[in-house]
């Protein structure tokens, strides 16, 4: 379908083309058999679609809103029940129990490995190094006395 027809198709089908566009479309259609054929198909399809226009649709009976509300409440209840049902389902409970056991086992092994690291205690070299770095208790006592004297003065 050529652009000039495609651009004006919706208005053409709705019968709302402006006079100027109408002339342009008709002039093109006179010389284009393909567009004439395609447009005829589109027009036929448009007529078929319009057959769906509501005819004597039933009116909502009184109390419709109340029934909608009840349905909403039922859906809400159903969804909360399904959450509980999923939680209480035996298969789900088994999975939770298995996961908890796995977690406990991992935690236990982690704690045991930490304990074994500390049970050996620091090496003699480490102890000596710490002692050398730290001021002796004698030195610290002198330092404290000097501070007190200067404060007193």
């Amino acid at each position: 379908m050529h652009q000039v027809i495609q651009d004006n198709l919706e208005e053409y089908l709705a019968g709302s083309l402006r006079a100027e566009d109408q002339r342009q479309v008709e002039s093109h259609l006179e010389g284009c058999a393909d567009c004439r054929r395609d447009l005829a198909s589109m027009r036929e399809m448009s007529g078929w679609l319009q057959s769906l226009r509501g005819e004597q649709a039933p009116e909502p009976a009184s109390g419709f809103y109340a029934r909608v509300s009840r349905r909403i409440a039922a859906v809400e209840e159903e969804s909360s029940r399904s959450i509980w049902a999923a939680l209480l389902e035996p298969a789900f409970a088994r999975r939770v129990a298995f996961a908890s056991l796995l977690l406990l086992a991992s935690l236990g092994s982690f704690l045991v490995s930490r304990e074994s690291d500390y049970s050996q205690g620091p090496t003699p070299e480490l102890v000596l190094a710490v002692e050398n770095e730290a001021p002796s208790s004698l030195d610290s006592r002198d330092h404290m006395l000097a501070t007190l004297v200067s404060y007193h003065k």
Partner: protein
Amino acid sequence: MDYENTQEGTLVHRAQAGEEAAFREIVERYQTKVFSIIHGIVRQRNDVEDIAQQVFAKVYFSLRKFDFRSSLITWVYKITVNECYDYLRKRKVRKLVYESDLSEDEVRRTENSEPAIDHRPLADSNLARQDYVTKLLSKVSEEERTLLMLKEVEGHSVEELAGMTGMNENTIKVKLFRARQKLLKAAQRLDRAPGAV
């Protein structure tokens, strides 16, 4: 004026905030329209109310997601059309399951007891045409179906559709053109293989 700040936009905001009176107003404002759309597609008077209830329940649960890009009626229209096609799909599945439980003789008897479209009196030819169009519409996307129905069934102009959907007029025209082409192709396939849809 921005749709969100219109009177209807304010109504939607109130409903989104959980105000029951606002939701009730939405239901009462659009219930007749929803009934009409449903009846136009499924044409089962007994099922119209049930589908309409389902539509408004969906509107209730999805309202918080409504982002004001289209008008409320366009959004409700789309939900309604989708719900109708869900219903038709389920009905088709139910029919297939029912038929699979029957013997070949029983299936043949059931088929013969249904009025065949081609042999219906002339007064029913419109029903056959509606069935056919409904089937064709199931072959395009949800968006294309909604646009085609808003244009052809509801009679909105391209300009109105642009206002309702938040798309520009050229986009609407291109989408409608593609949708119409798909419908024609689906119709050609259907003619080649009758009963395939």
